[in-house]
């Protein structure tokens, strides 16, 4: 099958790759670019473990063709920390033990960051609705929701 040559931006850096026309963004991230933070849970857009942002919009990378990345900006979990400095959400997830096995965590973090970028002061209901497409089989969600709420409060405090 003829490969497509795609030029895109991933986590702020220009990136080029070859992919098959029907290859998903998730497969390219994991198998061609070595960015294995996004996980394949269901492969059908139900679990959110493969969450990334595409031009700032939260999407499932398993439901996106890699070819669609041409001239777009992709952000993944690998771009979330600033070097060795964790993003406040990452730090709070650690402090409050908002994870157990960790498979859902990259998707949770990417989705939660997309929420806080858009709404720095969400209600608990808003956080729960926003993250409803990110499944976690370990935590029972409460610690995750609390970590996102606490991060939001902390980040609001820091910007005041």
């Amino acid at each position, binding site marked *: *099958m*003829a490969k*497509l040559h795609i030029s895109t931006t991933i986590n702020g850096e220009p990136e080029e790759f070859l992919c*098959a*026309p*029907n290859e*998903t963004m998730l497969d390219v991230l994991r198998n061609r670019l070595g960015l294995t933070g996004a996980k394949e849970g269901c*492969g*059908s*857009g139900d679990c*959110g473990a493969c*969450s990334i942002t*595409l031009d700032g*919009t*939260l*999407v*499932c990378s*398993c*439901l*996106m*063709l890699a*070819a*669609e990345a*041409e001239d777009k900006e992709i952000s993944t979990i690998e771009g979330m920390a600033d070097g060795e400095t964790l993003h406040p959400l990452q730090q709070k997830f650690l402090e409050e033990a908002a994870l157990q096995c960790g498979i859902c965590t990259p998707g949770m973090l990417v*989705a939660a960051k*997309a*929420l806080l970028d858009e709404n720095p002061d969400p209600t608990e209901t808003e956080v729960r*609705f*926003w*993250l*409803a*497409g*990110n499944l976690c089989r370990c935590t029972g969600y409460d610690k995750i929701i609390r970590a996102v709420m606490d991060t939001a409060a902390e980040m609001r405090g820091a910007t005041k």
Partner: protein
Amino acid sequence: MTDIQYLAPTTLDEAIRAYAAADGTGHILAGGTDLLVQTQAGMVQPGLIVDIKNITDVTGIERAADGGFIVGAAVAGAALEKHTDFATAWPGVLEGLNLIGSTQIQGRASLGGNLCNGSPAADSVPALVAAGAILSVQGPDGRREIAVEDVPAGPGKTNLKPGEIAVSFAFPPRTKGASDAYLRMIPRTEMDIAVVGCGVNLTIEGGVCTAARVGLGAVAPTVLLVEKAANALIDSKLDDDAITAAAAACSAACNPIDDKRGTVEYRTRVAGVLLKRVVGIAAERAQA
């Protein structure tokens, strides 16, 4: 393995030429939330994927000369939700669209995709039918307009001709005292497929309902326009008798299947119950 091609044209003409030339093996990619799932499940095997999201005609939200809205068929739920004028004019249409899937799905899923996927339970379609939205399609023989209720032809099937692409939806201009609402019944609280979906669009002048349209989903092979229910509401003060008659008309219009989500009897009864609730919400909004 068959060779698959991917094209992302920037003009409608290019897209239509390529789609028509693919001779039935072409598939249109808007948000991909149905197409990619179906492809990966082996339900469809595209020879050509035409990504239409680089075409401004299908991705824009504009005001028509008559004051109505023109919404591109591939506009994602997350993008339409942010358009405050549209959200004020058509809250019911947005309710239907925004009920589809998670935040991630909303980043991609579109009105055109939801309609053309042809599911009888498509959440945005009853509200589009109630709104009186008109779909503009373009194909090798040119442009034509189809009322949304005439688009579905049965589960997974539409009345679009071979080679035709859904371009945009035209919504009529809003008058004072008009609004809409959509509710669906599902066995859980979020992210499930409708057992019944009901969209209502009302105009109320001086306490009297002067115009109404009712769309009903998941109770027949296609989403239905229920004119008898609308007629029971029109010229009434939306009193109990009128609403009960409209609810009975909705139940009478049902021709549903039995499945794990609901029995024939349940769906038929719930269609009437939902109509009453949705009329209440739409009426409150219309008079706000």
